[in-house]
């Protein structure tokens, strides 16, 4: 019996220590070069601007699909693009915006259609090293083994993944410009488009509630918030049209936040996309940014003498 217990404790102990050591091999913190670490730069930028800012918040559609410099030039307002990963989830993204938005800001929310409410806990844990609001979020939403062990578990998984899969190009911290836009893909050939694996569930009651709560918060804090759909591939739009129409109806009926786009506004030909149905390529990005400027102009109230005709 003793032999069995000693052997079991020894085996599980050795395994735990080995995995912990492996997890420590993975680079993290302020100096990490990985994609999610772009959060550090995005937050630095937004906190360095004192005047009202146009904040873009949402998933990776914003990384690939927006030219913030052009937005800034046309709308005469500093722009900070916080968009990074849709799988962070709506609640996490809204929490992140709450941390940085101030009076006079305009927040443009652009979530991918699958709009996960909770998002992936591993991404939250990873983010917890990059800004305090993420750390607070993780502490307020505990899961699994507790923050320390969950973090090490996530880092172990990340280490294994990094060693076993090829790094995707255009997905590094260095691939962003100072506004927070992804730019590496602009000069790359389009890889094959991956069909959306996310079947759109039209029932977003919980998410709409969260959006409405965020709207109320914005009213109190004195910043404006509008909602714009994400760019979307034409074929995928046709496949999911029924669910999207239902989602659109619900948003228009129940969401307090102003919806500034129609479903068709940001549905683009397949050739406009980079590596998935939400990620625009250079041509698509240019087109999308121009449309976004037009739709945002009435919201930003650009002085008439500055408006570009």
């Amino acid at each position, binding site marked *: *019996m003793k032999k069995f217990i000693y052997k079991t404790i020894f085996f599980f102990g050795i395994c735990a220590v*080995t995995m912990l050591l492996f997890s420590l091999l993975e680079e993290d913190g302020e100096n990490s070069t990985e994609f999610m670490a772009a959060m550090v730069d995005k937050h630095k930028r937004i906190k360095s601007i004192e005047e009202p800012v146009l904040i873009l918040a949402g998933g990776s559609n914003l990384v690939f699909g927006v030219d913030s410099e052009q937005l800034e030039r046309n709308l005469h307002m500093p722009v900070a693009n916080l968009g990074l990963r849709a799988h962070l989830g709506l609640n996490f993204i809204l929490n992140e915006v709450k941390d940085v938005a101030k009076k006079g800001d305009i927040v443009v929310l652009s979530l991918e259609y699958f709009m996960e409410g909770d998002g992936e806990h591993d991404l939250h844990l990873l983010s917890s090293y990059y800004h305090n609001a993420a750390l607070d979020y993780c502490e307020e939403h505990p899961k699994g083994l507790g923050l320390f062990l969950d973090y090490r578990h996530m880092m172990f998984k990340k280490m294994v993944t990094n060693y076993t899969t090829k790094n995707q190009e255009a997905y590094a911290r260095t691939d962003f410009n100072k506004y927070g836009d992804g730019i590496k893909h602009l000069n790359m050939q389009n890889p094959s488009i991956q069909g959306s694996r996310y079947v759109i569930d039209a029932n977003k009651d919980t998410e709409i509630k969260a959006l409405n709560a965020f709207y109320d918060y914005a009213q109190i804090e004195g910043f404006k918030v509008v909602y714009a759909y994400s760019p979307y591939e034409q074929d995928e739009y046709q496949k999911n049209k029924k669910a999207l129409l239902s989602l659109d109806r619900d948003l228009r009926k129940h969401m307090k936040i102003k919806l500034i786009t129609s479903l068709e506004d940001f549905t683009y030909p397949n050739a406009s996309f980079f590596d998935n149905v939400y990620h625009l390529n250079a041509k698509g990005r240019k087109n999308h940014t121009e449309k976004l400027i037009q739709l945002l102009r009435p919201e930003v109230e650009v002085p008439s003498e500055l408006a570009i005709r």
Partner: protein
Amino acid sequence: MIFNSLDFAIFLPIVFVLYWFVVNKHLQFQNLVVVAASYVFYGWWDWRFLSLIIFSTIVDYFVGIGMGKSELPARRKLLLWISITVNLGLLGFFKYYNFFLDNFISAFSFFGTTVQANTLNIILPVGISFYTFQTLSYSIDIYRRKLEPTKDFMAFSAFVCFFPQLVAGPIERATNLLPQFGKPRVFEHDKAVDGLRQILWGLFKKIVIADTCATYANTIFNGSELFSGSTLVLGALFFTFQIYCDFSGYSDIAIGTSRLFGFHLNRNFAFPYFSRDIAEFWRRWHISLSTWFRDYLYIPLGGSRGGTWMKVRNTFAIFLVSGFWHGANWTFIAWGALNAIYFLPLLLLGNNRKNLDMVAQDSWLPSPKEVLQMGSTFALTMLAWIFFRAENMTHALAYLGEIFSSSLLTYPEVFPKKMLLLLLAFLLVEWAGRKHEYAIENIKTSFHTYPRWVAYGLLLATIFYYAGQEQQFIYFQF
């Protein structure tokens, strides 16, 4: 409490220490620890449902005692019917009430009559189909004089609620498990190590294979109208592996855990996807349920004796009831019927007991004929799983319709190469270990100590890598 949770990882060592170190000198106290631990394990979901288990335990205990004391056939029969009514009554109410009511209303509306009836908001107690069948077998075996009733209430309670197999089997017969609660238990090092190894393999099957397959199967089944036939075939393939690894993984963990406490549970899966015909598949899949239906339904109905009509009737009866046991939905009944249709030709031609041994018993590779037989059996099984997984009959038929369309020949929209490679690797490990009780059982004789420990470590690291959110086992809902 589920096996793949932190709660269970804490619970198991506590119970182990209590069982072997604190109360190890007293059999009654050991059984008491088993009962208390099992109630905690079960009550973790919803303590209110403990009352059902306790009620079922009390009824069957006294029914057993009553039958043991009586020699009057009428009285014994009455007691048996009390047990059957109570157990099937619980099952029927909690599992089938709304189904029958809905179909009753639909049937009347078909004939133009509107019937007003309210369905109830009933929560299905976890594992009710398993423990009711286990206690039923106890009463029936006493009635048939195959078993002496026990007077030891604690041992009987432990038999009914034994936590490793309480919620998803294997459904144990009293003839096997109950006597084990009456004998002093001796800790055996090799058996305990074997138990841990089987738990590790079960966790691998559940967390690495089943849960990963589930993400693809769910995506494809939930959005089946969006995908081509080729993708739907992949969806069915992923579900085929998901259900096998989920359920057999659970059984492995249950059997391994029991071994840690000195108990032997019967095997529940014997590499069913290497079967060469459907009859062999059903001898290898969910063995404890198949044999239950064989012994308590098929044989009493006459089995395969009698004329052709009798054989056909009994075969359909057992498969339809088996389908219905899985859930109150026409899809499960269709799944059962389809399996009956697969099985009947073998039975009628007398070929249902042709493949009794393991495939390629004396060689490493199967013959081309065996490959063909295994492939066709696997394909038929996969086709039947579509009914099992579909939301309703319309969904299942639309799914099948798309598979058998021209889009079957297009490149699938979802094609996870790594996952398919993982499945292939898994199949190879299963194939290599097919002559043993579970796939990695032979690791103890094939590897020296250090490589073996490295293999276990890698297995554990893989489980750790894939572990994330705790996913329920599919069979809990049955």
